[in-house]
């Protein structure tokens, strides 16, 4: 299982690096491609961290932040 996960992660990293390179308008150097590879790898690490929080089917995304949805009256005069 561990090896399989490691292999699929490697495949994803290389596929995403290839996609990124395809959208660049020039050939990247080896060290530049290495930077892209490291950042793709970091984003996959972030995904793993995000998945440590269990989400239910109906847990919707927050499209932005809406402070007005909270109860603090805020620093405003005549706050509603």
């Amino acid at each position, binding site marked *: 299982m561990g090896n399989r996960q490691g292999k699929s992660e490697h495949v994803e990293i290389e*596929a*995403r*690096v290839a*996609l*990124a*390179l395809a*959208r*660049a*308008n*020039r050939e*990247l150097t080896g*060290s*530049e*491609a290495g*930077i*892209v590879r490291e*950042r*793709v790898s*970091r*984003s996959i*690490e*972030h*995904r793993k*961290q*995000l*998945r*440590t*929080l269990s*989400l239910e089917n109906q*847990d*919707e*995304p*927050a*499209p*932005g*932040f*809406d*402070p*007005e949805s*909270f109860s*603090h*009256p*805020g*620093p*405003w*005069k*005549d*706050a*509603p």
Partner: protein
Amino acid sequence: MNGNDAAPAFATILELGLALRSGQTTAVALANEALRRLESTGRALNAVVTTTPETALALAARADDELANGHDRGALHGIPYGAKDLLAVADYPTTWGAAPFRTRHIDGNAAVVERLEAAGAVLVAKLAMVEFAGGFGYDQPDAAFTGPGRNAWNPDRWAGGSSSGSGAAVAAGCVPLAIGTETWGSIHGPAAYNGITGFRPTYGLVSRHGAMALSWTMDKIGPMAHSAEDCELTMLTLAGHDPRDPSTLRRSAYQSDRRREGFRFATLTGATIGVEAEIADRYHAALEVFHAMGSVDEVNLPELPFDAAAATIISAEAASAFEIFLEEGAAAELTAPEDRVALLAALSLPAVDYLRALRVRRKAMAAMDDLLAPFDAVLTPGRATVAPPIDQQFPEEPKDPGARTIDGAANLCGLPGLMMPMGLGRHGLPAAVGLTGRAGSDATILAVGIAFQERSGFHREMPPEPVANARSALHPS
């Protein structure tokens, strides 16, 4: 000037206002002095992109005429300030800190520039910043076409980012007020490293019309100044709904919180783990001051992936905001080698990862509100270290359990925060304490800051001979 007679360049907005109204100085004199210091000290610190002498002197002359004729626009009347160079100003280039845009002009003024002008403030400079506010993935200080932002206390140290010039220019006495922006740490970092006071408002409190967008759901604009009181005076002008920025809150005028004691504080469990010993000492001393202002409990930050969610959202939104720029290859002209390519990685970020981060954000917002609701502010050391050397790469994933993590959580959730000095740490560089509050508690956070500074006086400490330091660093004898 209330203890600053010997150094009027470091006077607060309130002190300068008194001097203006008593006839001790004029707005034109203040503008000229600010321009002089910006061209000398400010340039030496790489804090300045463009000075704005034509606009400054016209606005300053208007301010003097109005005061002479009994027309007083309020606390900011005649006060010089600098704006981070991601805020549009019609008559000058707006570079976003990026070489490809070094001569680019944007029509119209940013909303905050409009509001400050209406309040009588005098724009004297567009201030340096990390290219694209750091959103392209820089990992070292040399990431702006104006050069690495140098610290006002020691030019061999970093000013912090991305509001580098805003932090250094205030700390070096070039301007009493600068406007910064924060997506994740860009006001708080430079404020902490330069020993000044920086305020990050609740998301939606200040209009971002005319400001570069890096992350639509995380960008905020706020003041950087010598005191929490000056930050509040500025917020009274900046806060308010703007139909041109749909994220701004539909509320009426901002109202100050006059309390100075009886507060309820909490410090994070483990807040000083991984923090430099000198900063931990300053933090414990600062807690004594907070104890005198109210109660201090201890709380645990919820174990949620705040930083991962914030990083994922910023990557996805920045890649979208700059998609065409990236595909056209213009990033090849950026200063930091990693900035030329790193954001390409986000073009292949799966949509499901971005959506998961937004779903986590909803949980995080509720958890942080539960944590913060019983308190007026949660306290942490502002940064784990003093300003790092100017030539040092950042650690791959900075680990500041008490500081960086709550910064990630607060920015992810749009919460207000204040960063202010709490004495000096290692190498005689500033140490800072950070406050985080519930959404909408901006006035309370600033009231806490004002009360702390009235009792402690740390915000009065000035850097030693910034001009001499800056010159010796650039032209060693």
